[in-house]
């Protein structure tokens, strides 16, 4: 019997069809991953399965039992648990209280108006076991408001597990976590016994693909591709759907009458570093200008996280989470280091952990911290470059564009800048790098696009490109 079977599930908001006849069959014990661009209807699908939304048509069955007519709370009692994309916990209570409350939800004792909740030994013991499982037992009596974002994600999972679910829905369990935290959560999820069936929505493909056995790709409310990891990755439709963090499509751009970019398409995959290489005048900086909205393309489209932003103003594009470290740094020379950083500050996007603020920038670039009250114009070139990067990070971007960050810097400083770039990439930032120093660029890049005379001359993973014999011909001497 299938653990979770969804057939012909339909839901519209107003006239907008959010899910269009979804069919999904998850076998008992399976680990299923659901991916798809923003707005594909993934969370809506979860809300329909969990009962927060009522479908317009179709059926949902949990181990053969029809759920559509049941209210959400009944579904929890039948063994359906979920976590939320945006963490919703009880912030004034301890971790233990949070988990106990979750367990109480599927117990009869929840109606008892006399017996003190805190003295329910059996609930407490089971809750402590669940906290142990997620490695948080030592924090059981700490108030939730004093825990880190990563710990809260694990509390969410403990709360779901303590209900002994048969099917567990995880909505972006890795969102906003650092690399270490991701690894911990992955280990934790891998350790869940096979009597729990797991369906997971996730954007972090690297982690999620390792975890899942089968993958369903959603697009515009439909499941377009389904299969094993290899099948899905090889499917050309998936690449088409997944524009990635930043995409330029068939761009033609002009400066006055001169035609600078000819039909340029490039795609920066989330969490990766795309190096844009080419000779002087090949159109690299123009691509940057098009991406951030400084130059309006005459033809073609720009998308940030699958959201079309073509023709948007630079400030609106910046608000979608795109930050530029411009060529020549362009810091505010008469302002202090601190002021340079503060003017760019923007709160982190909802659900993002580890917001960048003055303190964190000072930690990442200790010399900026030391000189925070110094006028920026008196900084050395390397420090100014750090400041330009720090300033971009203060806007808490999801996509970072860097134009010639090594330009005019001493070799030792260049190495430092490159180490910083590598670290940012490891933290999950998607980076588009334009760089004259090809050797350096190839050392940090995942993917490469080669431009020549405003046209894409070659593109592909870094290993493939650097092996090409005609590389030097496109790049000239270096």
């Amino acid at each position, binding site marked *: 019997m299938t653990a979770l079977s969804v057939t012909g599930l339909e839901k519209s908001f107003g006239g907008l069809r959010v899910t269009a006849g979804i069919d999904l069959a998850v076998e008992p014990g399976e680990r299923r991953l659901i991916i798809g661009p923003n707005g594909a209807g993934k969370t809506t699908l979860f809300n329909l399965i969990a009962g927060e939304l009522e479908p317009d048509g179709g059926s949902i069955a949990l181990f053969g039992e029809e759920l559509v007519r049941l209210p959400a709370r009944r579904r929890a009692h039948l063994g359906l648990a979920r976590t939320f994309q945006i963490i919703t916990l009880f912030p004034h209570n301890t971790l233990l209280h949070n988990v106990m409350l979750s367990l109480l939800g599927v117990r009869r004792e929840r109606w008892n*108006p006399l017996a003190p909740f805190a003295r329910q030994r059996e609930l407490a013991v089971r809750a402590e076991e669940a906290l142990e499982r997620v490695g948080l037992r030592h924090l059981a009596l700490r108030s939730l408001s004093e825990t880190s974002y990563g710990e809260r994600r694990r509390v969410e999972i403990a709360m779901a597990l303590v209900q002994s679910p048969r099917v567990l829905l995880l909505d972006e369990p890795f969102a906003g976590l650092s690399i270490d935290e991701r690894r911990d959560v992955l280990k934790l999820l891998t350790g869940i016994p096979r009597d729990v069936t797991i369906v997971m929505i996730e954007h972090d493909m690297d982690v999620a693909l390792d975890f899942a056995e089968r993958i369903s790709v959603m697009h515009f409310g439909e499941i377009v591709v389904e299969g094993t990891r290899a099948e899905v990755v090889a499917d050309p439709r998936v690449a088409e759907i997944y524009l990635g963090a930043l995409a330029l499509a068939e761009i033609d751009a002009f400066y006055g009458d001169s035609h600078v970019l000819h039909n340029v398409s490039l795609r920066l995959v989330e969490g990766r570093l795309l190096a844009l290489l080419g000779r002087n005048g090949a159109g690299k900086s123009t691509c940057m200008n098009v991406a951030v909205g400084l130059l309006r393309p005459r033809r073609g489209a720009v998308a940030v996280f699958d959201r079309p932003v073509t023709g948007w103003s630079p400030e609106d594009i910046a608000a979608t989470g795109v930050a530029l470290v411009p060529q020549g740094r362009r810091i505010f020379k008469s302002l202090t280091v601190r002021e340079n950083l503060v003017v760019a500050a923007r709160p982190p996007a909802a659900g993002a952990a580890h917001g960048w603020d003055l303190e964190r920038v000072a930690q990442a670039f200790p010399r900026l911290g030391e000189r925070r009250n110094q006028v920026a114009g008196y900084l050395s070139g390397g420090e100014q470059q750090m400041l330009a990067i720090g300033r971009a990070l203060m806007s808490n971007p999801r996509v970072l564009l860097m134009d010639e960050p090594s330009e005019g810097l001493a070799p030792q400083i260049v190495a430092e800048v490159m180490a910083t770039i590598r670290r940012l990439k490891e933290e999950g930032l998607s980076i588009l790098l334009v760089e004259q120093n090809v050797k350096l660029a190839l050392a940090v890049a995942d993917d490469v696009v080669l431009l020549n005379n405003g046209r894409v001359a070659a593109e592909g993973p870094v290993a493939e490109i650097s092996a090409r014999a005609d590389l030097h011909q496109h790049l000239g001497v270096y």
Partner: protein
Amino acid sequence: MSARIIAVSIAVAALATLPLWLGDTYFVNVASQILLNAVFALGLNVIVGYAGLVSLGHAGLLGLAAYAGAILLQEGWGHAIAIPGALAVTLVGTALFAALALRATGIGFVMITLAIGQILWGLAYRWLSLTNGDNGINVSTRPAPFGISLDGAPQFYYVTLATFLLAVLAVFIFTRSSFGVSLLGTRDQPRRMTALGYDVWLIRFYACLFSGLLSGVAGLLFLYYNEFVSPQSIQLSASAEALLMVISGGSGTLLGPIAGAALVVIMKNVASAYIERWNFVLGAIFVAIVIFMPEGFVPGSVRLARWVVKALRPRPAPVAAKGEP
């Protein structure tokens, strides 16, 4: 914990001996008023503080009990029938009240409760054959449990005190119980609670019933204290006043509504003897509370006290070597 037990013992002892050291009948009556208003505020706090649903119609529930009791007595029934009868009527009325109001939360809930409160007031005012309209209903006797007459101020005070202590104990047990904790959960994260398997609506409904029961008890105390009930005592301003007690004292706390009731009743009775515009003073106090202790003055005072203790605590001398020859 033991400090808390000592504090509670002292408070109970002070309350129990209050008629002895307060002497004056007038002040004993003020104390009775505080306690019966505190029972009402405790009941309202169940909804406002613990369920996170603001009601502006609770005076209607208090009035339901008072009128039901008064009418039953007027019809010649004894206290032994009138008291449980009035509470039963209040519970049924509260069930209807909750069934209507719980169709919404937030501002919608406020508006529905306001409307129901106004309907109840309108009935009291206009249904002359039943309620005697604006003239109200007089109740000539107080009950006499175990043959003890409650006509004297101290005697009535003790009955009110006993009822009040029972109400405090009930709320204390309720908020710490599994059900009470679930109610707090529905206040903080209703969506989450549904996903966890809780019936948020039914939890809120039961909480309303508990709140209505306490309001009904307060309504009977009110009736017997005044030996009279009229539409005036259940109008909108009475609901608003109860809400002010809860919010000024500290909603969602056990002591807050009690302290808030004391504040309002003392201002009303005592300050009004000295200042004609006592409402103005009360308003100024509320504004000050909202500005300086938005969480209410019980939790606010605790916060201030902690801060003062911390500020007064002697710190280790910053530079020990300084001053040495």
